[in-house]
């Protein structure tokens, strides 16, 4: 990419930062586990910051997964309040991202997983450039109608665990349509399944990040 204004003190902009928020157990870590190999196969250099309340559980899980160099996964302990560290005072997470940037100068993308929270959690745009909110069908088909800030304000709404929809008496098509309707035109919603032999929606999520944040051609 060409840098404009050669007389200015130009610095490289650094890797894109993407937030992943959503309620407890909706599949945020599972989605990261599914996205890592997709990005790697596309030559995208990736690292992860995880947030847990008082443990490093999610970081350990990713480090042990064999999917990614364990040094590229950093844990932030959020303390009592998972949304404070991604919104009001994201300094711990910013420091974690900067640490990764310093140690891995070739990074293209840092994924920041928030600790599981409620429907009101949103990310500070000082921390991330773009963020998605992950809910799952098992939480009830009325979730989109409840219009929490997470659902309304995120850049991408992911509705996960489509595979279990029939078991929890939810129509996947209906919940996707309703979510798209409450969010309005041009605000993306992707249905997803990130566990099991047949995943769904994961490469569409990667495509969107490639296009809108990494400014790369999406493979046909």
């Amino acid at each position, binding site marked *: 990419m060409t840098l404009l204004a050669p007389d*200015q003190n130009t610095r490289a902009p650094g890797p894109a930062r993407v937030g992943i928020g959503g309620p407890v157990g909706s599949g945020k870590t599972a989605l990261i586990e599914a996205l890592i190999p997709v990005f790697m196969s596309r030559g995208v250099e990736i690292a992860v910051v995880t947030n847990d309340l008082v443990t490093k559980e999610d970081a350990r899980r990713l480090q042990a997964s064999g999917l990614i160099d364990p040094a590229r996964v950093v844990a932030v302990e959020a303390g009592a309040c998972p949304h404070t560290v991604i919104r009001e005072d994201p300094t711990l997470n910013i420091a974690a991202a900067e640490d990764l940037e310093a140690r891995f100068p070739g990074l293209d993308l840092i994924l920041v997983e928030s600790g599981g929270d409620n429907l009101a959690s949103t990310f500070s745009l000082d921390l991330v450039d773009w963020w998605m909110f992950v809910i799952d069908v098992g939480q009830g088909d009325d979730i989109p109608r409840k219009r929490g800030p997470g659902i*309304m304000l995120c850049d991408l709404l992911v509705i996960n665990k489509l595979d279990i929809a029939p078991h929890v008496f939810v129509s996947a098509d209906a919940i996707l349509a309703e979510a798209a309707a409450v969010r309005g035109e041009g605000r993306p919603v992707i249905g997803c399944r990130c566990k099991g032999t047949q995943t769904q929606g994961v490469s569409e999520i990667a495509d969107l990040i490639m296009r809108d944040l990494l*400014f790369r051609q999406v493979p046909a």
Partner: protein
Amino acid sequence: MEIFTTILGKADAPEYKAQVHRLSHAHALDVLRLSRADLSRRRLRATSDAGADVAIALPRDQQLYDGALLSLEPDRALIVRVETEIWLRLAAADQAAALRLGYFCGNFHWRVRFEGAHLLIAVETDLDTYLARLEPMLEGGEVWRVPDEEVST
């Protein structure tokens, strides 16, 4: 797609002003319209008024602003403009109601500003969502909407 990794400066700065003005008269001033919320982003991709596919990736210590000049060429300039914002203007019946309203807005993390005795809430999603939340206060007469809903940039 064009990628911009720095802001040249303010479009009305002395060194740019004349040329920007000239391009504007020649209909060669392209505008990238962003919401106020989007100004906080360091990376984004959007379409300009003239249909250009614009990608922005700024260093973390730089921030977009209304009037930021992204490119200036002999025959074209690209400038950032912030979209008009809608504010919901509210008044409270008394001090106790005002305190409750302030607490309430803070609890939702709504962006607000104050103008004299009025509290203004930035409408960042659809207005109905805000009105639905405020309904108990509005119905009880503790708080009311001030008709002159101000639209400012």
